[in-house]
C-alpha cells in the first residue's frame, strides 16, 4: 500500500512501489489528464507537481511521491474556476491537439512560481516540453500574459 495525496484527496493504492507515478495516476486512480509521451523524462507530457515543484511523473517511482502533495492538471482549477495559467491558455488559444498541454500548463505554473516575470530566454530554458503541433509561440505569449496578470 502506498498512501498518496492527489489534488487534496487521499488514496491508498495497492501497487508495486517502483511503478512510475504516471501509471498510478492514470490507471489506478483514473486521473487521465496527465499524459504519457515517452516514459524517459524527455517530452514533459506527464508533468505534475510534487510539493509545488514540476516533476516528470513517468520516472518518479510512486513510493517517492508518498506523503507528498501531488497536483495534477485536474487539480489546478479551484471550485471550477480555471487557474491563472489555464485562463491565459484559453485566452491565447494555445492548444491544438491538446495532448502535450497538461504537461505544458503544469510546467508553466511551476515556472511562474519560481520566476514570476520570466523572459523569453527563461521560458525557452524552462519549457523543454515537446509540442509536435508547434504551439510554442502561443505558450510564450500566454506565459508573459500570466506574468502580467
Amino acid at each position: 500500500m502506498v498512501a498518496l495525496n492527489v489534488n487534496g484527496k487521499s488514496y491508498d493504492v495497492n501497487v508495486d512501489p517502483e511503478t512510475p507515478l504516471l501509471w498510478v495516476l492514470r490507471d489506478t486512480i483514473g486521473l487521465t489528464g496527465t499524459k504519457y509521451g515517452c516514459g524517459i523524462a524527455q517530452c514533459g507530457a506527464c508533468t505534475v507537481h510534487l510539493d509545488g515543484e514540476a516533476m516528470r511523473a513517468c520516472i518518479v517511482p510512486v513510493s517517492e511521491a508518498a506523503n507528498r502533495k501531488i497536483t495534477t492538471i485536474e487539480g489546478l482549477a479551484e471550485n471550477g474556476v480555471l487557474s491563472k495559467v489555464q485562463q491565459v491558455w484559453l485566452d491565447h488559444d494555445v492548444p491544438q491537439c491538446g495532448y502535450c498541454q497538461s504537461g505544458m500548463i503544469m510546467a508553466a505554473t511551476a515556472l511562474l512560481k519560481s520566476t514570476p516575470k520570466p523572459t523569453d530566454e527563461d521560458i525557452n530554458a524552462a519549457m523543454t516540453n515537446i509540442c509536435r503541433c508547434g504551439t510554442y509561440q502561443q505558450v510564450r505569449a500566454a506565459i508573459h500574459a500570466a506574468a502580467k496578470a
Partner: protein
Amino acid sequence: MRDEPETDLALMKFGIGQPVPRSEDPKLLRGEGRYTDDISLSGQAYAVMVRSRHAHATIRGIDSTEARAMPGVLGVYTQADLEAAGFGPLKCPIAFPNRDGTPMKTPPRPALARDKVRFVGEAVAFIVAETAAQARDAAEAVIFDVEELPAVTDPVAALAPGAPQVHADAPGNLVLDYHYGDADAVNAAFARAAHVTRLEIVSNRVVVNAMEPRAAIGSYDPDTQRWTLHVGCQGVFGLRASLAKDVLNVPPDKVHVLTGNVGGSFGMKAPVYPEYPCLLFAARALGRPVKWTDERSESFVSDHHGRDHQRIAELALDAEGNFLAVRLTGYGNAGAFIYPPLPATINAVKNVVDVYRTPAIEVNSKIVFTNTTPIAAYRGAGRPEGNYYMERLIDTAAREMGIDRVELRRRNHIAPQAMPWKAPSGMLYDSGDFTGVLDDALKAADWQGFDKRRQESRARGRLRGRGIGSYLEVTAPPSKEMGGIRFEADGTVTMISGTLDYGQGHASPFAQVLVEKLGIPFDRLRLLQGDSDQLKAGGGTGGSRSALVAGQAFVEASAQVIERGRQIAAHILEAAAADIEFSRGRFTIAGTDRSIGILELAERLRSGMSLPPDVPSSLDVAHVSDNPPSSFPNGCHIAEVEIDPDTGAVDVVRYAMVNDFGTVINPLLVEGQAHGGVVQGIGQALMEHTVFNDEGQPLTGSYMDYALPRAVHAPDFRVQNHPVPCKSNILGIKGCGEAGCAGALPAVMNAVIDALQEHGIRHIDMPATPEKIWRALHEPREETRP
C-alpha cells in the same frame, strides 16, 4: 424582428472571419480531453505486439509455449490465427501505372508477418493478457526461429543488381517507375536553355511523432455480430470502409469506428494499421474488449514515417532568367510496404510548379522497397518538397546567373490577369496574387534592413543569411463530404461532418458557418465527427481539405434547412411558402412583422404539431456534398538565420510569412496552423534525422537520439494574410493545414545557404545539423561541387 440586434452582434462576434476561440480548449486545458488511452471498457484485456528485431529475416518458426503459460496470459496469436478466422490482409488503395503502362506492384501486407519480416518493428505476433504488464512480460518470452537475411535501407542500393529482395513478387525492389510530363518538350527546353541549374537534393526521412502514441480498443458483440473499434484516426468513415471491405470482409454496418480526441496525426494515423485487425480478432476470440497502446520506442518504428526522397532537380532558364522547364529525377523510399499517397509521385508534380510560369515539367520517380518502416503521409505528403526543390533551384540559379533572387521570382510569377491558369501539372489555378504576396512578405520581413542586421551579427562573430520560400499548395482532390444538421431535443444543434479534428480545432469554424447561414447562436452548436454510425459519407481530414469541404457541405445543408423551414413556417404562420423569407435566423412573411425563429420552429416541431403530408416534418438534413475542386493556397515565407561558425549551430532569428488562404473563417486557428507547420518545417530542415545502419537497425529510436523542435527552436512568427478568395468553392476558402511546411523548408534552407555562401558553400542537405555545417565550413569539401 425582436432579436435582430442580438443576431447582428452574434454575427460580429461569431460569424465568418471572426477570431472565435476554440470550443475544444476548455476541456483540453482541464485535462478532460478523451484520447483513446483515456478510455477503458469494462472487462477489457490488454494487448502487446511482439515486434521484429531484425530488419530482414525468414521466419522458420514461432514458439509461444512458454509465453502462453505465463501469468495472466489469455492468448498468443500469429498471422495463421488471423487467416484461419478469415481476416484479410491490409491493402494499399492506390495504384499508378508504370512509365511503360504496366501496373505497379501492390503486394498486400499481412497484419502480422507470416513467412518473413521486412523491417525492424514489424509485428509478428501479439499477446493478450489481463494486464498490460503481464502481456509485456509474455511478449519477451516468445521465441522466434529466424534466418537472418541481408537488409537494404537505401533505394539506390536496393535497385542495384544482387540487392536483397524485400518482396518476392517485386523483382529488383521496384514498386513503381513513375513518370509525369512531356519528356520531349522538357528535353527541348533544356537543349535550348541559356543556363541550367542542377542540384542533388534530399528530403530527409522524418519520424512523425504525434505526441499521443497510437492506441485502440477492439470489441465485438456476438448478438449483433458487430465490431467496434475505438481508435485515433483521421476519419472514421473511411477507416470503417477499409476495415470492413479489406480486412473483415463484412458489410460496413457490421463495423463501428469511434474516435474521441486525437493527439496529433499529421497524416500518420490515417490508414488501417496491423494492430487494429489484431484487436478485433482477439475481442471476438476472447469475448471481451481488448486495448492496446503503443510505447514510444515502438512508435518510432511502427508508425509510418514521412519524406525520404532523393532527387536530381534541374531548372532550365533562358538568358533573361525566364524558366523554360523543370525536371525532377530520383527515388522515393517506400519502406517495406506501400501506403498512399506515394508522396514522391503526383504530389511532387503538383507543388513543384509553385507560383511560376514554367511551361514544361517532368517528374521521374522510382519508388523502391527497402527494409525500413513504411513511408506514408506526413504534413503535405510530398508536396512541401516540391516547393522546396523549386525554391532551392531558384536561389541557386539566381546566384549562378547574377540575377537578384527577388527579381528572378517576380519575373516568373504567374500574373493575376493570367488566371485561370492551366499549370503543367494539369491543375487549373483559379486565383492568386503572387507578386503582391511576395511584396507584402518583403515588407513584413524588413528585407531592406537586412544588411544592417547582418553587420550586427558579424560583429558578434555570427554568419547571417536570409531565405525566401514561396509556395503554392494543391489541396486534396474532390471527394464527397457530409454536412448534417440535426435539431436536438435539448435545444442544441448538432453539426455532423465526416472530417475529423486531430488538433485543427474544427468545432468553432464550422459553427461560425452556421451562425452566419442559419443565425443559430454559437453556443447552441455542437460538432459530431468521430462516430461512423452517424455518417453517410466522409473523406476525413487530410490534404488541407476540411474547412473547404465541410464549409461547402454545411452551406449547402443550410440552404436545405431553410427550404424545409420555409414550408413549415408557412404552415405555422398561415402563409404561402413563397412569401416566407429567411434572414438572420428568422422565417418572416415578406412585408410583415410576423415571423418565427428557427430554434422556436424546431421546438414547435418537437412538441408534436400536426402537419399536412406535403410539409416536411423536421428541419434535419443529412446532406452529402459533391465536393468542389482543389484549391491553391499560396504564400511567401522569409526566414533569417544566424550561424555560429565555431559550432555550426543555426538559430532561426526572424521569420515572417504572408499567406493567401482565401476566405479565412477563423484567423486564430489559421495562425495556429501556420505556426505548427513552420515549426515542423524547421524541425525537418535543421534537426530531424532518421538513421538506419547497414543491417537496417534504426539508430534514432528515442527522444535521446531523434531531435525534435522545442520552444527554443521556434522564433516568434510574423503572420499576415493576403487573401484572394478562391473562385471554385462557395465560401472562397483555400486550405491552410499543410502550408507551413511548404514555405518553411525552402525559406530556412535558402537562409542557411545564404549565410554560408561567402564560404563557397552551394548546397547542404537537410537536416542542416551543426555537425554538417561545421564540416562544410572547416573541412575540404566535396559536396559543393558545381
